């Protein structure tokens, strides 16, 4: 099939960018979205033009590196699917596709579709961990964890840190990202000890990094390629209030 692409091109952070038009010809429906872009890039290189820069790595939907807004939706139209796992059979011959970077105040554009997401790392640095030193820990079965709790923790822990939730949020909030880590650890007995401190410092760091707050739009959930539930934001809020009033 043949497609009409409008792609965000921006040389560097401090320069203005613009949408530019490209044609993608003879695209197979079996191709992934990024393989389609690879093909467009091969054509640009042959013409001596600079290829479109975009982040990608594992191409199997787990590393969280790919980060494109496709037709206005982070990671594109298919539910619970990263950009790299989106396949061209989801488009039709003659379609026009708009491709932009994840946009948020806390995610400056580095080049074209590549953004700086180091703010997410700094939220984790603030307290997104259990302070267990290597060695000297009890046997793995010494602390039993109810299956339901382990499953809930896993539901939250599936977050791949891509930032689609931020790009989808009208407030540019990293609430779903932060809530996923807070909830994953707060559900587990090992994580409860530091839960109160963790939720406070992570939330504070999130706001310091320029992310907005949650306005209950739930766009984050709709965009999340791993389907992280917004109930974890409620969990974060509960944990936060508990911490503020000193409840254990």
């Amino acid at each position: 099939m043949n497609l009409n692409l409008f792609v965000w091109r921006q040389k560097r952070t401090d320069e203005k960018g613009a949408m530019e038009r490209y044609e993608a010809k003879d695209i197979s429906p079996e191709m992934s979205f990024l393989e389609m872009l690879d093909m467009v890039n091969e054509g640009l290189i042959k013409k001596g033009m600079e290829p479109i820069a975009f982040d990608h790595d594992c191409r199997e939907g787990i590393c969280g590196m790919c980060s494109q807004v496709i037709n206005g939706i982070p990671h594109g139209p298919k539910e619970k699917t990263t950009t790299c796992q989106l396949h061209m059979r989801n488009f039709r011959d003659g379609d026009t596709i708009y491709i932009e970077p994840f946009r948020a105040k806390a995610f400056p554009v580095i080049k074209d579709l590549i953004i700086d997401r180091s703010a997410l790392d700094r939220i984790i640095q603030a307290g997104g961990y259990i302070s267990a030193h290597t060695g000297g820990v009890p046997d793995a079965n010494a602390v039993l964890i109810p299956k339901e709790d382990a499953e809930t923790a896993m539901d939250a822990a599936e977050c791949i840190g891509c930032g689609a939730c931020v790009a989808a949020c009208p407030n540019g909030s990293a609430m779903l990202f932060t809530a996923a880590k807070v909830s994953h650890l707060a559900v587990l007995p090992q994580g409860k000890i530091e839960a109160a401190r963790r939720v406070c410092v992570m939330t504070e760091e999130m706001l310091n990094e320029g992310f907005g707050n949650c306005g209950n739009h739930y766009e984050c959930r709709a965009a999340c390629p791993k389907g992280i539930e917004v109930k974890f934001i409620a969990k974060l809020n509960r944990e936060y209030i508990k911490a503020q009033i000193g409840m254990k």
Partner: protein
Amino acid sequence: MILDGKCPSGPLHEKWDRRKQELRLVGPVNKRQYKIIVVGAGLAGASAAATLGELGCNVEAFCYQDSPRRGHSIAAQGGINAAKNYPNDGDSIFRLFYDTLKGGDFRAREANVYRLSMVSNNIIDQCVAQGVPFARDYAGYLDNRSFGGAQVSRTFYARGQTGQQLLLGAYSALMRQVRSGTVTIHPRMEMLDLVIVDGDAKGITVRDLVSGDIKCHAADAVCLCTGGYANVFHLSTNAMGSNVTAAFRAYKKGALFANPCFTQIHPTCIPVSGEHQSKLTLMSESLRNDGRVWVPKNKGDKRLPSEIPEAERDYYLERKYPGFGNLTPRDIASRAAKDVCDEGRGVGPGGYGVYLDFEDAIGRLGENTIRERYGNLFEMYERITGEDAYKRPMRIYPAPHYAMGGLWVDYNLQSNIPGLFVLGEANFSDHGANRLGASALMQGLADGYFIIPYTISDYLARTKPGVVNTGHAEFRRSIEDMNASVKKLLSINGRRTVNEFHRELGRIMWDYVGMSRSEDGLKKALSIIPGLRAEFMEDVKIPGSGMDLNQELEKAGRVADFLEFAELMAQDALHRNESCGGHFRVEHQMPDGEAKRDDENFRYVAAWEFKGINKEPGLHKEPLSFENVKPAVRSYK
């Protein structure tokens, strides 16, 4: 030169304790005077950097991704082995050790593998303490599943995302150290060179992938945790950015490269769909617990799988290997798939695929149980192929997946260059000629959490901290050399893209240095590769400049190294005139087609020394001695 792995003496189970007693320590006050560079942020790199930071060293951690949470360990699906014996099914440290050694076709060091099995249990404890949400049973205990090459259930797992959860555990420990100021992270940086001063590794040269700046970093020791080189095949299950550059540049600076021909072709990947293919996706081996592998008995049978009656199906793994059935080790399952497809019995477009069928398991356990166990894998399969594997069997085919070979290290994980340590997939040490499933995660974390902290301190204790800085002539020379090589690549301005060369190299490697290798084929590969390399240096086209984010330039540097490394791999495969594990030489097989090892002549590690481009590398041997097990014919029947 005969290499010495420097394994400790004494009984097998006392070796690691003995070594720990022999190793020197650095006092807590002095530790902070030492700076250690860790390159790579997968399981090995993240766990090493976090643990060394915890101990008080100054750690500089580098990765090419935008965050250390994205190393390709994250894509490991199935699980991690440990000898906990929680299911009470007969497992022990010795059995894990034996299975791993046998799985590797007796081409690994006994002492290393035994240590790996010993610390496997500590890893599970550590990960649980960090909050890794492993699967549990209804009583709250940890659950296990079985994996290829073992008759016990010793694999711990977190849905189909075990690698992700383990890596995020190590990443969180690493982030904690960043906060406490012991570790500095350098993302979007690619190592281009190892800097050696007076014989010791004292730093690295990196390119900042955003600004294009080429800079040096000096340290008291360097740890390479840079993963494997399966992307030499172009199409593999590795991430697009996975490369051999860091390891290969260390090799060019004198580090020995061991057993480069030992590569693993994983049996359960989604088949290639066309020329546009950029990578291959693995479906976890754990699927073989419940899926049955088959092809039609008749050649060229084009009927839908549901229309082929039971009597006309060949469950070839169950037929050939009744003892292990669908759970034979990866190399055996891969070759068996290739054999039936070469016979013309393959399925799907192009005929390069076999069925992995869940019909029986769904009938026995119900669709819900299967969904609970493998739901995310079925979803992934559907996204890529557009087919529903609950309704019709998956199609799978082998794909390059893992490198057992890597930089040579001694028992302390130190290369032949003092101060250069190599961890995880980047070293050659524990898996011999074939790795068992769920053992890569185990090795990466064993090296990073529990081995390097002990062994590196012995080196540090013998080294004065901070004697070298980046003002040294060796660092200046390295920067000049790297700037010159980037400039050279950019000046070629030819007609063909980097991908075109990479694809062509991949085809050569897959055809002649892939699943089955012959003397003629290997010689052919060795005769074609130098020509392709020369063509690359004359005709590759890289737009843009070096002083900018330039992904084509990044790729070009990596492919240039693959073009050199491919020759080393073929050389090693040609020299190893036997079949063992993943290295199958058609000249050496049993009457039934199984690999025929030659212990008399090849019971050694082949470690290669760089002698110059277009020059034959030098071979050094490390003989392998087996004092506790008798190398047997590897049978899974």
